[in-house]
């Protein structure tokens, strides 16, 4: 049976070219990059510097502005908690938006317990916030705006440059969780007015457990109180022995992603559009979630009316995707991201996220479309909601016995 992996927004396999770069640093070149007095340490430091350059090129920043971390969750924590604590005397207000990843929402909520105020801006039906919303939310004591670059569930891309401009005008620091955008679409921290940018290696064909945080050094010089205290690595912002093989992998992954971005982006959006065309021409009552224009090339989020997401995933068992259905998590709550877009719980339960990647082929897409069409039709035949809708019953008017 053909196995298809369409969950690249969750994680990606390590590119063999990346692994080749990493292996020497797991074998003979095992030195500690902080060892200043022998060649093992020097060679490790050199490799880390190369990676810093590679990552900086993707962001359009100076290599000195790249801080290594264990991944986006840690980067987000350093950016949000670190800035809040460093600038806490200046103000206690932070602005984010409703569809942020938990790794942004939870540090913000944590800070609320420490007396900070957080405004979560609502989004449009397409999942967008506007620079105007940000401008209106900024108060005298706002110290940080944190708006994700591209959403992990819908792929919707926020207007970064416009938001950055407002932040610069108002003198407020601008952080973005760039996890899904890094290496997929063009980023320019200068042109976009971004002061802090979080990223992870494993979303761009690098290894898990390594990431980075861009921290601006000039106009303005941004400082973060560290979350981890220790040897004072990474300009004192993130102590801990550097994960040299992981960092080498992230650097190699960044270089490949940048080099291939134009062609790969076109190929991926082609696959995404082929998928949507295949699904929408064969199935009625399906809806695409997110903004179809301001969207990552590799994410397609679709609600299939009258069918529950987990049963859909079970039906297409050899295809790996994600669902906004509660049944896929322990919480019993469907995707808060889709609900923020104004979707009812029923539509959120019926959603599937397809995320294509570097190793996805056209055959994978065609196979998945066939499987989806077959499964949706089968499950609709089994769905009391589909039957009621066909009988002309307005499901929103039915009084359900919620449990």
């Amino acid at each position, binding site marked *: 049976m053909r196995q298809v992996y369409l969950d690249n927004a969750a994680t990606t396999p390590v590119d063999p070219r990346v692994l080749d770069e990493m292996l020497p640093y797991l074998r003979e070149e095992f030195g500690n990059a902080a060892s200043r007095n022998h060649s093992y340490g020097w060679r490790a430091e050199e490799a880390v510097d190369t990676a810093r350059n590679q990552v900086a090129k993707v962001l359009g920043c100076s290599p000195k502005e790249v801080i290594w971390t264990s991944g986006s969750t840690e980067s987000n924590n350093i950016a949000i908690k670190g800035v809040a604590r460093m600038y806490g005397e200046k103000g206690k207000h932070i602005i984010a938006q409703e569809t942020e990843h938990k790794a942004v929402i939870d540090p913000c909520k944590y800070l609320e317990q420490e007396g900070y105020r957080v405004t979560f801006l609502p989004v449009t039906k397409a999942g967008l916030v506007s620079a105007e919303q940000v401008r209106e939310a900024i108060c005298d004591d706002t110290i940080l705006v944190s708006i994700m670059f591209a959403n992990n569930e819908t792929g919707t891309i926020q207007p970064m440059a416009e938001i950055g401009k407002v932040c610069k005008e108002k003198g407020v620091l601008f952080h973005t969780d760039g996890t899904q955008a890094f290496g997929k679409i063009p980023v320019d921290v200068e042109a976009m007015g971004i002061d802090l940018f979080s990223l992870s290696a494993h979303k761009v064909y690098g290894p898990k457990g390594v990431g980075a945080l861009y921290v601006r050094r000039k106009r303005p010089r941004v400082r973060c109180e560290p979350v981890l205290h220790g040897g004072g690595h990474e300009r004192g912002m993130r102590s801990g022995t550097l994960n040299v093989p992981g960092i080498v992998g992230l650097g190699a992954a960044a270089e490949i992603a940048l080099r291939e971005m134009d062609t790969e982006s076109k190929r991926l959006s082609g696959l995404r559009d082929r998928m949507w065309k295949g699904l929408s021409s064969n199935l009625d009552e399906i809806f695409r979630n997110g903004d179809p224009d301001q969207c990552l090339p590799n994410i397609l989020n679709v609600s299939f009316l*009258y*069918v*529950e997401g*987990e*049963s859909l995933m*079970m*039906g297409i068992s050899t295809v790996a995707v994600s669902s906004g*259905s*509660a*049944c896929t998590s*322990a919480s*019993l709550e*469907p995707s808060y991201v889709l609900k923020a877009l104004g979707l*009812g*719980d*029923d539509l959120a*339960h019926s959603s599937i996220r397809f995320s294509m990647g570097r190793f996805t082929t056209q055959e994978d897409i065609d196979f998945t479309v066939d499987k989806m069409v077959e499964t949706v039709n089968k499950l609709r*035949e*089994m*769905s*009391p*909601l*589909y*039957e009621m809708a066909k009988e002309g019953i307005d*499901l929103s008017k039915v009084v*359900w*016995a*919620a*449990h």
Partner: protein
Amino acid sequence: MAYSNKVVDHFEHPRNVGSLDKAAVNVGTGIVGAPECGDVMKLQIQVDDANNIVDAKFKTFGCGSAIASSSLATEWIKGRKLDEALEIKNTDIVKELALPPVKIHCSVLAEDAIRAAVADVTAKRDAKVEAS
């Protein structure tokens, strides 16, 4: 979390999918759950004059475990008397399908659906007796 073989079997080969004439006096319909909660089960039974369940059908919007629970429920109640159908407990379904704790609500829903269908057909018959 992997599914048990029995859940997979019921999901891939659901027993008794379909609908019975809900207007018929000898058909009981139970609809439980809500779309917002991610599962809705419709279970129908057809009874003869001696209160035997001669046919059962279901349609379910929900996860694989919800579909399997309702499929199993129809299989179990067919051939039983109405009062015997009520003896089926959700814990029996949990055991048979090896449902994990997060899926116990699926079995509860199936038990509720049986009860609702039995109550419906009983009420219909009582109403008919009173009318005649």
